[in-house]
């Protein structure tokens, strides 16, 4: 189980290191200093907002693709043992999903909406 203990330890070390570094300096600020950098201009509102994501259809398409990745890892492990059958099966699987990409492209989902 040390196989995951080690990454966990490394992650904690990294956090400790960067947090310690950032504690070196003081973080006091006046209000003019805190204003967001816009090249001299000022905003009217907070930047946090209902941010208009322009690629939301792509994000949904992406999730479907992501699911499929999870089938491919075990497939890759047994591929050589299984041979042509595995190739045909994955070819079919990827073919079906490629239709999804083609359709998405045709409908313009990879553009900024």
């Amino acid at each position: 189980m040390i196989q995951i203990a080690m990454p966990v330890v490394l992650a904690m070390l990294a956090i400790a290191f960067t947090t310690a570094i950032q504690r070196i300096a003081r973080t006091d600020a006046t209000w003019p200093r805190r204003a967001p950098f816009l090249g001299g201009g000022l905003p009217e509102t907070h930047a946090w907002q209902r941010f208009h994501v322009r690629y939301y259809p792509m994000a949904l398409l992406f999730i479907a693709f992501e699911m499929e990745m999870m089938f491919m890892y075990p497939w890759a492990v047994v591929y050589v043992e299984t041979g042509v059958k595995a190739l045909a099966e994955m070819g079919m699987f990827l073919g079906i999903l490629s239709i999804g990409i083609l359709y998405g492209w045709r409908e313009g989902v990879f553009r900024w909406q």
Partner: protein
Amino acid sequence: MIAATFALLLSLPLLVWVAAMFDRIGAGRGRVVMAPLQNGAALLLRPNTETEAPDQLNRLLAPGWYLALALVGLSVVPFAPGVVASDIATGLVLWGACEALTVVVVFLHGWSPNSPLPLIGAYRYVAIGLPAMLLSMFVLIGAALPAQSLSVAEVVEAQRDLWNVVRQPLGLPLFMALGLAITLRGPFDFAEGAELAGGASAEESGPALAAWRFARAAMLVAFSAMAATAFLGGYLGPVLPGPAWLLLKTLAVMAAAVAAGRFFARMPPARMLTFLWVVLLPLSFANLALVGVEALP
């Protein structure tokens, strides 16, 4: 395992230094050796910047998570037969998880200052980072096919006869695209590009900025080591000992990544998104098909 972890922790700062030197050479600036250290020290002596109503906790932790992901990614890379910090059977998947979490961390880094330019950088980065990650997964699955395993050590051993870079010529260039994306450089630097005046890091100063840049360079090291392992045979090589070979190959990939970052122009994000899905992703399918046919007994 413990020894490998110590070796990793000791060598990482040095390799980060080398990465910074490569960056200076790439930018065509002098004083290659000392300037990264001096500039880093100068940054550490400057104050941090507080913004109006930031997300303090995430702002503090984002550089740490970035560095943590670089370290975890590096921990699955074997330095020599049997010498690896994390000997997990699904090392390739763990590396993939690190890529996915990198997108999250860069997003948090841009989100937390509550400032428009970092915010735009964060959202653009997600649009490009996600498909770039998908791309790399197909490529890495290609590398796992001949090894019949998801363990990184097995992937190296399967390259004893022939390196993957020869067997799967499309693999390494496509993987480089991901490397540029997760290390925020050149054509894939949609988080911190010049058109956003520093983007996700525009509001950072002092030690916070130094920590973020350190983590970014550490990610370049981790990516280069992974690319060297998955495609260039890792520690395999004649005469020299294994770790030396790994080091040399890592440095070569690092130099190539820095050069590629300076060579290719960055497209507007919408154009890049189409390019990724319509050109690069089908190329990675083609790569997988070629690897599949080649790997058949």
